[in-house]
């Protein structure tokens, strides 16, 4: 059994390497075709090593990539945290009450398709501060997936479970904590996972608009304005790695909270 497992991991590592290899090939080819306009993998690697040399440098004029990453993550964490804090209870209320659903759903449907970036100027107008405006934007874009999924979960609590609650006279609190929330939890986590994915995409765009310390700013100022395309590629790789890591965390949570019915 153990051997089988290691054989499986070996093969998945091999497939992963094959994928990297193909990607690298295409990348190198594009580099050649653009005559170095897009730097090839090896010169990008050189820039990459240089960029991560002093990751947590935090001087006023020079900040390391780690510092920028952390500051982006911090904004995402605050926006996502606040957004979830609102979205989960509102979603559960919407899913549990037909009236709440009818009142809130039209608003959600109208606001949900608005591009998160459209909220940025509004945030700027409210807070007069561009990093705060980025957080505000994250907050808004984290609301919808969580809210909708929480509402879906809550509205699908099986009649059997509700009957148990009625038959044994559960208090409202018992119903919430022992039936509604546990049943909705997998759905809520799905919503959180979608939200964090969007948030991570949006933060880069937001920081490109807003400036300040962050990955988006790194892409814009040092990469584009600095004429260093390799830095853009480095940033893309780092953003991708961190994004997939975040996704992994929530996939793990999802598995942890799924029950055999």
């Amino acid at each position: 059994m153990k051997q089988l497992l290691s054989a499986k991991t070996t093969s998945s590592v091999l497939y992963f390497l094959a994928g990297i290899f193909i990607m690298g090939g295409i990348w190198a080819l594009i580099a050649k075709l653009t005559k170095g306009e897009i730097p090839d993998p090896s010169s990008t690697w050189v820039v990459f090593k240089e960029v991560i040399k002093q990751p947590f440098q935090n001087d006023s004029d020079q900040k390391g990539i780690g510092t920028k990453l952390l500051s982006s993550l911090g904004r995402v964490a605050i926006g996502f945290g606040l957004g979830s804090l609102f979205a989960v209870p509102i979603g559960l209320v919407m899913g549990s009450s037909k009236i709440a659903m009818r009142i809130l759903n039209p608003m959600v449907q109208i606001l949900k398709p608005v591009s998160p970036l459209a909220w940025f100027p509004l945030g700027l107008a409210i807070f007069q501060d561009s990093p705060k405006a980025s957080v505000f934007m994250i907050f808004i874009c984290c609301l919808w997936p969580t809210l909708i999924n929480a509402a879906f979960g809550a509205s699908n609590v099986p009649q059997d479970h509700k009957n148990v609650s009625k038959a044994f006279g559960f208090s409202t609190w018992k119903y919430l904590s022992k039936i509604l929330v546990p049943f909705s939890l997998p759905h809520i986590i799905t919503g959180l996972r979608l939200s964090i994915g969007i948030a991570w995409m949006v933060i880069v765009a937001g920081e490109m608009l807003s400036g300040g310390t962050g990955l988006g700013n790194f892409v814009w100022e040092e990469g584009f304005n600095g004429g260093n395309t390799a830095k853009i590629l480095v940033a893309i790789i780092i953003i991708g790695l961190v994004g997939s890591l975040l996704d992994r965390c929530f996939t793990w949570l999802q598995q942890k909270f799924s029950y055999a019915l």
Partner: protein
Amino acid sequence: MSTSTTFEESTTEVTDRILSQVTQPEISIRVDNVTVSFKTPKGIYTAVKDIDLTVNKGEIVALIGHSGCGKSTLMGTISGMVKPSAGQVYANDKKVEAPGPDRGIVFQNYSLLPWLTVYKNIEVAVQSALKDLSSAEWNKLVEANLRMVNLWEHKDKLPGQLSGGMKQRVAIARAFAINPKILLLDEPFGALDALTKSAMHVELLKLWNLDNREKTIVMVTHDIEEAIFLADKVVVMNNGPAATIREIVEVPLKRPRNKKDIVHDPKYMEIHDRLLGLLIDKFSIDDER
């Protein structure tokens, strides 16, 4: 002197009570002209119609009928899960408007909460139904009832890790644990093997005896032997739609009943044949169609 008067008083009181029970037994459940219709996409479907049924306090009643005839629906009107379209149901002298912990239910599909362990499933029910007890008393109840159904060793498992029969026993322990005046059991032993089933029959009767036979039990079953062994009367239902009560068969066998001896009792065989006739009669009609 004073003691003797109280003694006299209490004896007359007791005789009065016994007399009143003989002449006019206390009614536990009264189903009064109940009809239940469901709205379906294809129109209104009447499951049961004009059901009248009176169950006295301390009686055990078995409900028998073919699948889909409306047994669970009728049970639902007593538990308060199903609202009658016409008529009303009284339980414990109160009109049934909603479910309540005075009526313990074993659901046909167990209805355990899949994210709670066996122990927690019962604990949460006990805490909700018996709010005034201390947590030590709650724990004692949970343990006693889990031991009764032989699941104490499995108390930390989730329902998904149990077999069908084990889930059913958890559901039974949960209903018993809240010690309701009325027990409503919807095919409570359906998923059990013969041996476990027999043991559960004994436990059910033990529980009933413990409570001075004051607990009223209504159970749905497909098992004629089980119905006769446990019940004071067997309610046989017609096939739906608009199922009615076909016949109520009394089971005047003396208690305590012994599983082995009872089957040789001529009265037992007579009731058995009667019930079989009522059910098989319908098979033949079905065949002719």
